[in-house]
């Protein structure tokens, strides 16, 4: 491997101490004002903007040598970018890694919250592309900052209401906006709205890092997070109306996998650890079969 110099050429967890202090200060301010976007002087990381540099910087500022790190992308530990980020920290921080949600102390994620409930002592770090929930309604940062200051979220409600008027329901399926402790409207990152309820009242610390946009925000444990909705059109989660074809789970978020060009498809848990754990405990779905020798 030649894409990084040996571990000892870099500081623990890659970032220099001054950079970590700057990020740590931003994290603490984010914790103190849940849901509020705190600017931080995001560094250029040895991976592209948009590929998790915000999450990587937050993780780097939090890691201790005793941590067990789990990295997922789309719910899976083996997607290429998750592999790449996990390797980065194996190399630069020397931390142990795991695929098991229950064993991890720090979990960096892109687009999902694990199905297995998180616990106290865990930190969930989200990679965030566009931290500003109002950005697609108002492109100017100078304006959106004012809207947060004045708690002027009417534009967001108008947008959601237009959805209702046009489609009979709120037509946002992921990155569904939430309100934190009755104050800040927050982008939960592009998780499917299926995951939104897990944001609220979690025993774990949830940290959000947006590298290119230079923002950090946070949800302390046991924080009230409400998905925006209307009395007559309450928020509802959604998932494919199936059970997992491998483990039979009825309650997990599913990926749709095209199996042939005749319209054949199957539905499998997006959370690969959750699915494998269920199968290991003997639970079987419609298309379950023993893993072939030598696989994995």
């Amino acid at each position, binding site marked *: 491997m030649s894409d990084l110099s040996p571990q000892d050429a870099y500081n623990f967890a890659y970032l220099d101490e001054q950079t970590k*202090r700057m990020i*740590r*200060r931003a994290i*603490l301010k984010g*914790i103190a004002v849940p849901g509020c976007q705190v600017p931080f002087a995001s560094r250029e990381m040895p991976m592209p903007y948009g590929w998790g540099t915000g999450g990587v910087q937050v993780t780097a500022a939090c890691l201790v040598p005793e941590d067990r790190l789990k990295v997922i992308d789309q719910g899976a530990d083996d997607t290429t970018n998750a592999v790449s980020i996990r390797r980065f920290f194996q190399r630069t921080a020397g931390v142990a890694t795991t695929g098991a949600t229950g064993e991890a102390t720090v979990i960096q994620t892109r687009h999902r919250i694990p199905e297995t409930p998180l616990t106290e002592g865990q930190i969930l770090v989200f990679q965030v592309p566009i931290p500003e929930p109002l950005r697609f309604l108002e492109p100017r940062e100078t304006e959106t*900052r004012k809207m947060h200051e004045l708690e002027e979220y009417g534009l967001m409600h108008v947008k959601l209401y237009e959805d209702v008027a046009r489609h009979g329901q709120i037509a946002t399926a992921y990155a569904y906006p939430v309100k934190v402790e009755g104050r800040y409207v927050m982008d939960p990152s592009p998780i499917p709205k299926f995951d939104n309820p897990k944001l609220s009242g979690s025993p774990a610390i949830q940290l959000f890092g947006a590298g290119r946009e230079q923002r950090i925000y946070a949800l302390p444990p046991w924080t009230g997070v409400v998905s925006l909705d209307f009395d007559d059109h309450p928020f509802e989660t959604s998932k494919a109306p199936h059970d997992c074809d491998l483990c039979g789970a009825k309650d997990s978020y599913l990926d749709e996998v095209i199996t042939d060009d005749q319209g054949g498809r199957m539905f499998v848990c997006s959370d690969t650890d959750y699915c494998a754990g269920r199968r290991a405990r003997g639970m079987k779905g419609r298309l379950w079969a023993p893993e072939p020798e030598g696989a994995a």
Partner: protein
Amino acid sequence: MIADALEGGFAEAPVQSARAFREILEAMARPGTIRRVQGATPPAPLSIAAGVALLVLTDPTTRLHLAGEADCPAVRDWVAFHIGAPLAKAEDADFAVGPWEALQPVSRFRIGQPDYPDRSATLIVECDRLVNHGPALTGPGIGAATWLNLPETAAFRANRALFPLGFDTLFTAGDRIAGLPRSTRVEAI
């Protein structure tokens, strides 16, 4: 005195500051919980925990206010050598350290701007002891009821009323540390 100033920093800063930050993060994210930190031996009268918090969070880019007995030559020299934070008046400080009485009136400290609430001071309040007994705390980060022996309640209730503006507080005693962000509601006693 200069020789003393050279002592008491982290021996292995990257790892020790990482471990200490995790404790501080837990303290701030779970207001009222009392954590332990180690790795620094700052000069008297600073507690170990206050010294650790300063080493973890402050540097030449943060303005530091030393209050009361913390504003002494030994601490100033130690800060100059290990941290390099410019010393500042209370009104300009990003961080302040000292006993509660010496930090008064706390209304002097920065509470952030309406568009940037994060630009507020963090107070490191030196206490004789920290125990989970005193006014009840509720708010983000607090699941079951929590209590903490705060030096007073009125100032923290006034600070909560400014939310999302306000200062944030770390309490230190010996090697123990607890957090009280501006979001915490403090029971009136």
